[in-house]
């Protein structure tokens, strides 16, 4: 090493490079040091000059900005779940409908934003009665901060829009491969503007009837509001559509149609997990409840881990294969289930909930298959069924130590939430069962009306030949994947007079 260095130094060029670099680095380091010393002297000097300085901002004035920042960071994370959904759905879909899957998620997002600005937020978070809100249409007459949260009104709106968007995207998962693009736009309007906001109002809205029961129904981050609603609507969509052409069910000697890209699906799943760190911890709406956000984040992680491992083991026990699809669905099931109870349970409780969710998810997939419902990505089992389980789990596993998060810190003034297993009796469990049953039942009816209405208007499903040749090529002008040379080699712009006969 040293020998090589000395040898190198004998050559003129090497010598020159060595000194140039060394010299340059020395000058740079000296400059940075000088700057640091100078700044320290300057700041120190100023502080010395003004001996008693009154702080410009009182600590209390920082609460709202910090909470707002926390909610915005969480909103950005929840928004990024769209990327996860797109990848998960595209990966489990076939190549011929990949563009369609991507387009549906993107356009759903854009439409949901406009609809949630116009009416969705008003129905969900406006003052009104126990069933529906009617304030803040088009975000008019908005106060600076929302309610008692101390969070900037529009930051709160953004966070809630990201949630609404998640619900509407979940629905498309079970309808992949046969829903027409127009049909998707129509049902998305129904979901984003009407069904999701109204159900949400009952649980999260001011004066919502489920939130004001004697023992309030508790859904911390949306196992019911987002996931049960999305999953049940997905079920109604899949039932109204019927299976994809050529899909044979297990009891008829068939099975799932194979997804086309497990790499994309797996990474999409992990991006969803990542986004959940906005979904659950962000739902405190308060960074001041520091123990709360820490607990929620840890519980979210542990439930996902347990769901992942239990799903993996359960499938290995069955098929002697380390199944990637169920491993991904397993941790998603754990995440969906922990979404409602994440604030009120212990880490051990989170692990038990996540583990059970994975088993319930696999059994639900079996049941849906048995009923001959074609759900290409398992949205009904993961979001619908595990959402119901997570909601009920609040009534079983809540430890009784925690109340609600408040703008300035954890708040137990309105009582704590205690589940059956922690000596809380059946009060909370009954509330959870009532809420979950009512939401599931009414959303099921609303979904069937919406989906069968679109079906009757012949807007829901693509014609047979389009489905067989691929929605991408017919509705979106081309496939996601081209054989590059064959495509560009013979494709000529139609305007150049080439034959357009098809």
């Amino acid at each position, binding site marked *: 090493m040293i020998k090589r260095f000395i040898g190198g130094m004998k050559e003129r060029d090497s010598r020159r490079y060595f000194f140039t670099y060394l010299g340059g680095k020395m000058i740079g380091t000296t400059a940075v040091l000088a700057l640091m010393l100078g700044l320290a002297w300057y700041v120190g000097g100023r502080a010395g000059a003004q001996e008693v300085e009154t702080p410009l901002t009182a600590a209390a004035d920082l609460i709202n900005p910090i909470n707002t920042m926390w909610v915005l960071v969480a909103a950005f994370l929840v928004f990024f779940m769209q990327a996860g959904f797109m990848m998960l759905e595209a990966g489990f879909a076939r190549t011929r409908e990949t563009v369609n899957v991507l387009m549906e998620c993107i356009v759903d997002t854009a439409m949901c934003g406009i609809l949630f600005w116009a009416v969705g937020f008003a129905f969900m978070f406006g003052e009104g009665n126990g069933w529906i809100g009617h304030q803040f249409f088009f975000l008019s007459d908005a106060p600076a901060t929302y309610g008692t949260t101390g969070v900037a009104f529009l930051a709160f709106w953004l966070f809630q829009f990201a949630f609404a968007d998640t619900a509407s995207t979940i629905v498309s998962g079970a309808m992949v491969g046969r829903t027409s693009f127009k049909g998707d736009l129509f049902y998305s309007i129904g979901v984003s503007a009407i069904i999701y906001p109204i159900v949400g109002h009952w649980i999260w809205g001011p004066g919502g009837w489920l939130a004001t029961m004697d023992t309030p129904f508790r859904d911390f981050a949306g196992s019911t509001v987002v996931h049960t609603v999305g999953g049940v609507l997905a079920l109604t969509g899949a039932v109204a559509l019927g299976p994809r052409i050529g899909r044979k069910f297990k009891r008829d000697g068939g099975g799932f149609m194979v997804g086309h890209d497990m790499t994309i699906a797996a990474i999409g799943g992990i991006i969803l997990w990542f986004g959940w760190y906005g979904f659950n911890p962000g739902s405190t709406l308060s960074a001041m409840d520091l123990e709360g956000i820490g607990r929620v984040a840890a519980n979210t992680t542990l439930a996902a881990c347990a769901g992942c491992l239990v799903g993996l083991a359960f499938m290995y026990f069955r098929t002697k294969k380390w199944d990637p699809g169920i491993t991904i669905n397993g941790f998603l099931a754990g995440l969906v289930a922990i979404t409602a109870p994440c604030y009120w349970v212990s880490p051990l409780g989170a692990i038990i909930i996540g583990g059970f969710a994975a088993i319930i998810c696999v059994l639900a997939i079996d049941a849906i298959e048995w009923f001959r419902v074609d759900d290409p990505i398992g949205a009904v089992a993961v979001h619908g069924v595990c959402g119901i389980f997570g909601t009920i789990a609040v009534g079983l596993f809540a430890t009784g130590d925690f109340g609600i998060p408040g703008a300035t810190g954890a708040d137990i003034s309105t009582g704590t939430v205690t589940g059956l297993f922690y000596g809380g009796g059946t009060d909370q469990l009954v509330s959870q069962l009532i809420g979950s049953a009512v939401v599931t039942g009414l959303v099921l009816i609303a979904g069937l009306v919406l989906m069968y209405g679109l079906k009757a208007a012949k807007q829901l499903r693509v014609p047979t030949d389009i489905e067989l040749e691929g929605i991408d090529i017919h509705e979106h002008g*081309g496939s996601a994947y081209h054989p590059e040379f064959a495509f560009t080699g013979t494709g000529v712009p139609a305007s150049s007079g*080439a034959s357009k006969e098809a």
Partner: protein
Amino acid sequence: MLKLVTAILKPHKFDDVKEALKKDGITGLTVTEVKGFGRQGGKTETFRGSEYTVELLPKIKIELIVDEAQVAKAIETITAAGQTGKIGDGKIWVLGVDELVRIRTSETGVEAI
């Protein structure tokens, strides 16, 4: 005498054809996803608003080697299972095979099918 039967099919008809051939006792076939055109012509695609007449459509090519006596049956099966009656159903052609060897055992001729 051995024959090579090659068929071009609509992609979504491949499963039906494969199952029908298996029922006939065909023990193996080779599949390629191909692109091409025939009398059906191309299809207009769009990319960022520009229209393209892509003169190729995705098709499935299957190849199977059968004994001369089975050729008629194979053609009949492929035709029956692969037909939609619409333009673009594809073609079948048959060539003679000079030699056939199973690599594992060095068997030749009909034994190697």
